[in-house]
């Protein structure tokens, strides 16, 4: 039992350790790097929570990447046409939701293979975004770069200036925590919200039950189909926010294949987090930190070895494989995951 607690605390400890060591060795760049890690974490966290809802309800989703990409495209397109980041966000959610519904149709209604449906959705997004992008803007698949209200601006939290003089806490609050776009805070707030919804509400109990033992939920008179559709739809909304943040927060517009595997890193983080909301926060923070370090130091010189950036980029995947191998705490997926539910007649 005690060992389990220690294993759960492992990711936060590693994250904290990396931050501390970084701050001690190279404090000037560490601040900037951790700031960027938070931004890089945001789309991962949102997509990871998206996958969490879907997979907890028993619907595997390897189409997170595609949904995010589609959302990034629709968000950037609408934001470019209306010059409103908020309308872009709505469009992003709409884009991802549409793909979610296809996934629901295939994997819930028609009881198809959820993994194959996810693969198809990834390709659909990859092809359609470029096809439509060229048609609408004629810029080779890019959208025009967004300015002003077309992007989510950085907001300064209250008292950031007043507190910045206080040692240690001041700079951390003023530079690290304050000064991100609203979607970063939304993403972080989604973590306690998800925890509360999943573990403290009737809806959450049913959602988890549908992923573990759908027959029991059915016996209790609750529709498995409906419950799974709702979960898949929530997944779409969160992927939509993630994509919108990528295109209108993190960068200023859409470029071809801009998700660059983030959907799969989110999937890795979900396993890393063992399908738990707080775990998702720390796992995506860890992966965000790794990406940030790789950006800051293309060739990380540790004195005795030089770590190439390719290794840092591959590290999330390598760590996930190690976790999957079950050497560092076992990741057990929801029991009914991936299986379509067939009601007995």
């Amino acid at each position: 039992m005690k060992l389990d607690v220690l294993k759960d605390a492992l990711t936060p400890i590693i994250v904290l350790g990396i931050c501390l060591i970084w701050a001690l060795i190279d404090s000037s760049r560490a601040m900037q790097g951790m700031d960027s890690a938070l931004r890089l974490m945001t789309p991962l966290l949102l997509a990871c929570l998206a996958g969490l809802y879907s997979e907890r309800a028993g619907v595997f989703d390897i189409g997170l990447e595609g949904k995010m990409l589609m959302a990034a495209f629709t968000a950037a397109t609408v934001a470019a046409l209306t010059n409103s980041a908020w309308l872009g966000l709505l469009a992003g959610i709409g884009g991802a939701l549409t793909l979610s519904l296809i996934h629901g149709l295939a994997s819930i209604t028609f009881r198809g293979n959820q993994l194959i449906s996810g693969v198809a959705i990834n390709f659909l997004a990859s092809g359609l975004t470029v096809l439509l992008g060229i048609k609408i803007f004629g810029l080779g698949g890019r959208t025009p770069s967004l300015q002003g209200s077309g992007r989510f601006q950085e907001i300064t939290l209250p008292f950031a200036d007043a507190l910045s003089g206080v040692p240690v806490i001041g700079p951390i609050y003023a530079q690290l925590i304050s000064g991100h776009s609203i979607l970063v805070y939304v993403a972080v707030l989604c973590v306690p919200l998800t925890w509360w919804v999943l573990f403290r509400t009737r809806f959450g109990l049913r959602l988890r039950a549908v992923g573990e033992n759908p027959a029991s939920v059915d016996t209790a008179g609750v529709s498995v189909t409906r419950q799974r559709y709702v979960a898949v739809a929530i997944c779409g909304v969160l992927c939509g926010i993630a994509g919108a943040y990528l295109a209108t927060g993190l960068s200023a517009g859409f470029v071809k294949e801009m998700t660059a595997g983030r959907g799969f890193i989110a999937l890795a983080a979900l396993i890393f987090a063992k399908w738990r909301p707080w775990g998702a926060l720390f796992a995506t923070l860890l992966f965000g930190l790794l990406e940030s370090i790789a950006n800051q130091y293309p060739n990380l010189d540790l004195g005795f070895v030089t770590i190439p950036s390719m290794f840092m980029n591959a590290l999330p995947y390598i760590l996930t494989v190690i976790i999957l191998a079950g050497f560092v705490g076992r990741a057990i997926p929801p029991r009914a995951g991936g299986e379509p539910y067939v009601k007995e007649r």
Partner: protein
Amino acid sequence: MEKMPKWADVILTPLISLFLAMAISALVILAIGESPWVALTTMVDGALGSSYGWGFTLYYTTNFIFTGLAVMVAYHAALFNIGGEGQAAMGGLGVALVLLYLPLPHWLIALPVAMIGAAAFGAAWALIPAWLQAKRGSHIVITTIMFNFIAAAALNYVLVNILRPVGSMDPASARFPESTHLPSISDMAAAIGMEWGKNTPVNVTFFVAIAACLLVWLLIWRTRLGYQIRAFGKSEPGALYAGISPARITIIAMLISGGLAGMMAINNVMGESERLVLNAVEGAGFIGIAVALMGRNHPLGVFLAALLFGFLYQGGGELALWTSIPRELIIVIQALVILFTGALDNMVRMPLERLFLALRKRGDA
């Protein structure tokens, strides 16, 4: 009792799925303000209208046969190998190492040696996910996805830091020695006095791919191992009861699958580019999924589906050249084929089954 005749299951459902995918693609083309008819004729003309077009179509077909067979073999063992991309990339590394560092005087010697190198590297890259699935119970889909990314990073590192010749800026290996270049089919045609497909990349590997189809058919349906693979794929408890070791079959099936994916490198790395370049696989590993699904996991089906995708690939390139329809249309078609033949299979099948039942009832009455 079978709900519908076998021919309907094997031929009619994939054809209807393909038709649906094509119909939606036509709508997409209409939506971007182009003519589906012009698109189709451009593609047919560009891919099948000349021996030049055929030369490219068959080159792509060769790639897709290997990756399609790879997905197919794993699928018979109820394993979804989504890692063909990484395994084929690693196969490329195997080919490059063999050709660059072993003295091979003639292509007839180089080909089998390179095949072994390609298959060994591809299989090795499938081994770890297979072992993790068999012994540690981790899901093969997730691990093979992760291994695709790890392969890309590893290859990037090897090409930039190790295989890149001194003084070159390109992240690519040196050219393979002249003696190991594979004869292209146009060379072979020229040797017997025919002019066919000049300057096209299709090479002798095409025949290796056809042989691979035959061998895989023999393996799956005519050997004890193939029987065990299929039995395991149909029912794990059943296989266990029959004394078949699940761990052994999982690992063997994935080794064969990875080996086949790796063999693709004979075509693209050894036959076409004649050196190892970054991202040599270009998504062929993923197309293998569509090919296997479309081909109903049968080598003949895989061959035909690979031909279809070869046509789509070459036709798509022509489309981008002659019309204002971007190449990415092919990715949309590919996605729709996977969606309809793989995931929305029941959408097509259920009404068909009902139709055949109704027909039979009327026949009985």
